[in-house]
């Protein structure tokens, strides 16, 4: 390859580059004449304008074809997730830890819960209906004003001793803290596949059995009432609130326990170890002195 292997000095290379930048013989700049640069730029501008136009058209078509009430596919979201409040983490694990003698740490926990419960106060829930307990609240039509559907009322007071109404500290001033368990909402999800059995919360102690004296559920039995299902989506039910279950733990001795709270229903999966928040939540409850 004698033809290609001419060794060129740095000076020659620089010169070549200089000629590439501006070649006075052909009037080219970076390999093209200014005129050609204008042409090629125009070509690319036109190309990208058209492409952007087509892309916008595609997205517009997409939005146009989407159903505003329900997503087209729910295959990724078949079973609801469950979360505990207050959601405080240490690394990957949920750890609810407070100091019984430290007002600041108590207030942090209680404030979190009272903030969380704000949408559930009586004034917010005023517009929602009192639904018949114990049965699904199915609505085929948009009967509520502004072409929406009715949502059922879930008030703070339903959480009894954990409502924060009587005890604004939610028990964090002592050894009987409240936690609130929320089940994620999924459009058109019917717990127990419409058999009429209400799902309920069941908390079990994974370790530290001796440290918990008693578990109280509010509402009683930890039931998520059927009237809150199905959920019809943000657009149809703008005032919908998730049903909640509050749990009050009576801590004794070391005041420390690992707890798993699971929503019991046939069609709520919980066994997948890769998905720790599916159908259940595991947390460590710690009350320091």
């Amino acid at each position: 390859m004698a033809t290609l292997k001419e060794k060129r000095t740095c000076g020659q290379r620089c010169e070549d580059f200089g000629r590439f930048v501006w070649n006075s013989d052909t009037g080219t700049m970076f390999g093209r004449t200014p005129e050609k640069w204008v042409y090629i730029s125009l070509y690319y501008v036109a190309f990208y304008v058209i492409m952007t136009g087509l892309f916008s058209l595609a997205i517009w078509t997409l939005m146009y074809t989407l159903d505003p009430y329900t997503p087209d596919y729910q295959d990724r979201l078949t079973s609801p997730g469950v979360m505990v409040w207050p959601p405080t983490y240490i690394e990957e694990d949920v750890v609810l830890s407070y100091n019984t003698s430290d007002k600041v740490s108590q207030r942090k926990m209680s404030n979190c819960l009272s903030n969380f419960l704000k949408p559930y106060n009586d004034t917010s829930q005023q517009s929602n209906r009192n639904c018949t307990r114990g049965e699904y609240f199915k609505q085929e039509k948009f009967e509520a004003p502004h072409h929406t559907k009715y949502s059922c009322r879930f008030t703070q007071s339903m959480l009894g001793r954990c409502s924060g109404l009587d005890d604004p500290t939610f028990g964090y001033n002592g050894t009987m803290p409240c936690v609130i368990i929320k089940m994620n909402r999924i459009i058109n999800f019917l717990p127990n596949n419409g058999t009429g059995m209400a799902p309920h919360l069941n908390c079990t102690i994974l370790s530290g059995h001796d440290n918990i004296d008693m578990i109280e559920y509010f509402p009683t039995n930890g039931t998520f009432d059927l009237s809150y299902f199905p959920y019809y989506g943000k657009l149809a039910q703008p005032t919908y609130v998730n049903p909640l279950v509050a749990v009050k733990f009576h801590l004794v001795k070391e005041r420390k326990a690992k707890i798993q709270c699971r929503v019991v229903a046939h069609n709520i999966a919980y066994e997948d170890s890769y998905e720790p928040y599916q159908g259940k939540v595991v947390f460590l409850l710690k009350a320091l002195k």
Partner: protein
Amino acid sequence: MRYTTSVTKGLTSSKAEEVLERDGPNELLPPKGTPEYVKFARQLAGGLQCLMWVAAVICFIAFGIEFSRGTLGCFDDLYLAITLITVVVVTGCFGYYQEFKSTNIIASFKNLVPQQALVIRDGQKNQINAMDLVVGDLVEIKGGDRVPADIRIIFAQGCKVDNSSLTGESEPQSKTPECTHENPLETKNIAFFSTTCLEGVATGTVINTGDRTIIGRIASLASGVGNEKTPIAIEIEHFVDIIAGLAIFFGFTFFVVAMFIGYAFLEAMIFFMAIVVAYVPEGLLATVTVCLSLTAKRLARKNCVVKNLEAVETLGSTSVICSDKTGTLTQNRMTVAHLWFDNVIHAADTTEDQSGQSFDQSSETWRSLARVAGLCNRAIFKPNQESLIVVGDASETALLKFTELAIGNMMEYRERFKKVVEVPFNSTNKFQLSVHELEDPMDLRYLLVMKGAPERILERCSTILIKGQEMPLDEQWRESFQTAYMDLGSLGERVLGFCHIYLNENEFPRGYKFDSDEMNFTTSGLCFAGLISMIDPPRATVPDAVMKCRTAGIRVVMVTGDHPITARAIAANVGIITEGSETVEDIATRKRIPVEQVNRRDARACVISGGQLKDMSSEELDEALRSHPEMVFARTSPQQKLIIVESCQRLGSIVAVTGDGVNDSPALKKADIGIAMGIAGSDAAKNAADMILLDDNFASIVTGVEQGRLIFDNLKKSIAYTLTKNIPELTPYLIYITVSVPLPLGCITILMIELATDIFPSVSLAYEKAESDIMHLKPRNPRKDRLVNESLAAYSYFQIGAIQSFAGFTDYFTAMAQEGWYPLLCVGLRSHWEDVHLQDLQDSYGQEWWVSVIEICQIADVLIRKTRRLSIFQQGFFRSVDVDSMEQMSLTPYIQSYTPCYVSFMKGWGQWWFVPIPYGILIFVYDEIRKLGVRRHPGSWWDQELYY
């Protein structure tokens, strides 16, 4: 004696053993082979391989950083690094295996039959293995033997050797004990290793053995010349430069952007690395290797063995072929081409099988002529051989074969005409005669038959046979003889004259003592029978192949040691000199002007002999090569062959050289691709060459050219494809970093796409058929037609890549939206999306998602799979001129190779598969419009900007 040997008894066995111990065996050591591990290492150290090594190291570093920070989300980087290394090693093994195999094929040529030598030791004649010869040994050689070492002749009888493998001279050299010249190559008393003794016997002492022989020295000289880089290696390096430049440019840009947006330094660094790695074309290496080795395999089936895989492509860019004549263009055997008798020139059949005789054989003259040709002939068929193997000099062999076909069973025919006496050919009288008894036992006359140089024969004749009648040889007949002789001579053929006479019964009765030295019999007043001319005819496939070369824009230059006239005749015959082309001399003759007055530019053809070449400066040679498209070099020496090759290379050509002799090996090395002959080629030539033609057939070269061009085209397509894919792989990152959408494309996904989808197309690309016009285009100009050029990069990146990116994002947003995440919600969602502490992230419909579901939901996994599909449409359409055939050939393999991937990747995600199809159609239409423009308006702005 210098060699402690005896002229009669030779060495003693013990002494011989001692010398053997000291000097080693008498054989050419194979050129110091590269150790196998170095060969393997070389496979791992090409341009692309280096790029991948760097990428792997970067991956390890990124992995290390993440590991030490304890933020190890996944082992992506580690897997990536391991995969990269695996790809390099696997393709390396593959390439190594290929080369190993072809080396083996070549090695199998050597030592087919161990050479024997007749040696005199301790006064005894022994057949020993030529390997065991030592300096001082006394050896005997006879006609047909290969000279076993460099030998100084001490006794010779009519000994002639063929030095063509050493010097390229095709004339046999006679060897005598006298020292006639200082230069060992010129002197008559030294016979060289590996040359062939044609006739006679000789005895001599061995003066050099093994690598110290002349041939050994030439061989080791040639192997000392370093291998030049192949064009494809240069192209790939160029490509790697571009890729590396782009990768670092983009990576750095992203790095700056990421830092600007507020990422931590290390995180930005990881982005940088991810981008650099995303740029590495993992599949390309496999493509190149697969392409090259499949083609090498295909070529091997057509009798071309490729020693160096990359040489396959070199052949494709070849613009000049310097071809040998003998054996490559011709059949390498003298064949009777024409006969002149009854004052008419008859043409004989010169095809390889010589099936039919095309002339009228009824004439009496023909019978006499055939009888003379058959009887006055010393060539014989080797007895006890299945096939007809002839022993004898080339023209006698030709005559024997010819008469065998015409008369049949020559051996028996000669029995019938018992030979009485014979005078062999010698250079003073230039004829050969023999006297025979007649077939008819009642006829007691003797028949004297004679053949030789036509003018000498004619001198001795007084009559001429015309239609079986003896006519007096008058001026008129002499005139027509001259014409015929000139005509045949100008065809480059070797002409022999034949005559006979019935000796007078009374003067030479039975039992007459004929004396071959005294010549005590009539040798004049003979009866002229006719002329027979012979030539080494071109192979049947060659004219077609030369034609193909010409349409493919490749010059075929003939370089031969033969006579200019013969060379020219063959060149005209095979089409190297086309019909109607004239040399300067032709024009001069036609116009009746002196040669000096002819405008050299008018002459298309040019025949330059070695003598003329010697007086030319290199500029003059360049000028001659430039101004005459049709060149023939005759009577050239090996050194001149090298000069011619260098001159062609100076003119910017990629030169292929064919050769067989040891003397060709420097030229073979110097050439961009050296092609050695498998049958006639010497080991030295084979060692120096990059490719070996097992059947010595020129036509095979043309096949190789076609395959080489195909590879270049396919690689270009493959690279366009690879480059295109980079953009849709990068833009998700860009959008991820700048607009903060959830990451559309994970590292592993990219890897899967790269490997799973790159290698299949690679394989199918290697099988892709040639575009129909591949052999109608000019060879590529290595300086201008690069594998990757600006317009290819621009087209891939900024046009097709852009369309694919848009397609990808459409798909991404579609998938996200259909799962519940509207495009506008996606923007800026990243921090929430990746927040492992957020278990109720709300989508556009108010549904709440927990983190694990989100991770699984790398919806856009589908994205690139989709964009790859686009490439299916795009694939193969890149350079098409013949759209229809392209469509068939590119779509079928793609659908085949993609189908299995589809199935395993689908898992209910198939719906998003169809989203980018409109974009696919768009790419297809766009590319077709582009090509239409390129085809319709060659040279226009459109062509310049959009053709690559």
